[in-house]
């Protein structure tokens, strides 16, 4: 990548009341790159994203956003939020709030604003439900609206916190494809967190892997290898190619379940 880094994180450490969450995390995301932030539950993915947004104060290290971009130029889609079905906001209103919803004062309307909102709704395929209350949409539809909300100011960096959680296979595929297209179309670097990397393998340029509070990052084809992933996970992982697609399989899953069953006191009491 010849472009300057859209995001660089330098030896970032965050701890909450003495407990280290992130330790010496270091990686870069180049302009326009599509990057997956992978890690188990509780590995600090959300904390890392919040540190990048400036909502969490790091103990040490720094986060640099591309010069001239500034924190205001980051788009953000939060982790699954539950929206009240009675909230009087249509998809269109949510996208419009993406333009200047943080500023004081009354909502202003203008033809130029409405054109930008309409264009964004078209880009994410949300025109069909643009005039419905956002709280009444399905999870996949809400995700599209929130992506439009995040992108309407054309940020150079888009952060998404577990955007694929709670989506079925089809919606997952649609959202992944949409994000990849938008990333290319708007030349926006994307950093999205997920605990399962499989649906993302066809589109990602780079992986940041969070494990036991430190991060490893690399080009996707350098990281998605049996020996690299096995070392990161701390147990054997197979990277296999079937029908022209790459799949990551944790071979230990059946053993993990057996071990968990053996540890479960109720289960051991019932089964001799």
């Amino acid at each position, binding site marked *: 990548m010849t472009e300057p880094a859209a995001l660089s994180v330098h030896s970032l450490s965050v701890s909450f009341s003495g407990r280290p969450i992130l330790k010496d995390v270091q990686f870069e995301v180049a302009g326009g790159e599509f990057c997956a932030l992978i890690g188990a539950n509780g590995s600090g993915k959300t904390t890392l994203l919040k540190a990048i947004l400036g*909502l969490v104060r790091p103990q040490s290290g720094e986060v640099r956003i591309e010069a001239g971009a500034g*924190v205001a130029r980051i788009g953000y889609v939060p*982790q699954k939020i539950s929206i009240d079905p009675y909230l*009087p906001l249509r998809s269109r*209103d949510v996208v419009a709030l993406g333009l*200047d*919803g*943080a500023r*004081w004062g009354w*909502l202003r309307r203008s033809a130029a604003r409405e054109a930008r909102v309409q264009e964004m709704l078209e880009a994410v395929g949300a025109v069909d439900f643009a005039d419905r209350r956002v709280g009444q949409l399905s999870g996949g539809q809400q995700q599209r609206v929130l992506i439009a909300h995040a992108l309407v100011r054309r940020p150079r960096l888009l952060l998404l916190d577990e955007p694929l959680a709670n989506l079925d296979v089809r919606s997952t595929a649609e959202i992944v494809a949409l994000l990849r297209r938008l990333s290319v179309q708007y030349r926006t670097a994307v950093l999205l967190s997920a605990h399962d990397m499989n649906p993302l393998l066809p589109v990602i340029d780079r992986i940041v892997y969070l494990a036991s509070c430190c991060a490893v990052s690399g080009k996707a084809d350098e990281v998605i290898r049996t020996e690299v992933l096995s070392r990161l996970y701390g147990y054997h992982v197979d990277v296999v190619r079937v029908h022209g697609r790459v799949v990551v399989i944790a071979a230990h899953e059946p053993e993990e379940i057996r071990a968990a069953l053996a540890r479960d006191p109720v289960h051991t009491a019932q089964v001799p």
Partner: protein
Amino acid sequence: MYPLELIVPPGFLANEPVRTALIVGAGAAIVSAVVGVFTVMRGQSFAGHALADVSSAGGSAAFLLGISPLLGFLGVAALAAGAMEWADVRDARERDLVTGVMLGVGLGVTALLLYLGTIQGSTSGAAIAVLFGSMFTIPASIVPLAIGVAGVALVAIAVIYRPLLLSSLSADLAQARGARVRRTGLVHALALALAVSLAAMTVGAILSTALLIGPAAAALRFADRPGRALAWAVAIGWAATWGGILLAYDSFYWTPGHGWPVSFFIVALIFIAYLLAGLARWRPRQPALRRPA
């Protein structure tokens, strides 16, 4: 006889207590409806009710001291609202508990002050006025202050309008976007204190919740954009208040010698509006509200 007199009885508008009730009532209804829409959207209905109950301590203290009850309601409600925002309890369950405890303390102090009032003997009727309102006994001298309070509350809401909408969608999202979420919350809480104080002056501290939550809840049943929700809530609250005043005035003729309380009619009309709003939303063929899987 003008046709209008079939609805508006003769002498209605010439009567000074009625005029005062109409002006103060309209102000309370408009501000309560506007603030109420956001209070409901933020899921703070219980906090709104608690604030009103706590403010009754100020109202009853004002009766005891002989100052304007509006000042009493205002002072205590604003203090309580500031304290609630300052404490900044994020956990919903804990916030409910803290709110509930505060509500109890406020009403307990009210009970003491009202009791002291009855011993003094100078404030008979204070209990009813503070808790359930007494619109036809509002002194005309209060009108400028009431209009000022209403104006400040509406301007405050206009200033925080966009961040309020954004943070009712998601506080996380608003914060990430750089919205001043805490400042917005504080201004909303103070506007809530102003709305509740005005409403307490008209329908009483306990019933002020009806004026705050009722019109907003009815409007949110069918309005699908913020501006319309606000307009409908204002229309419902205002119409119910003036309708209630009119009916209460008429009730002097139904049961000669004593009229029915205005607060009862206002609350009844708001309840009817809420039921009608449910009908307006009802569509026979559409499935029930679809929640994301």
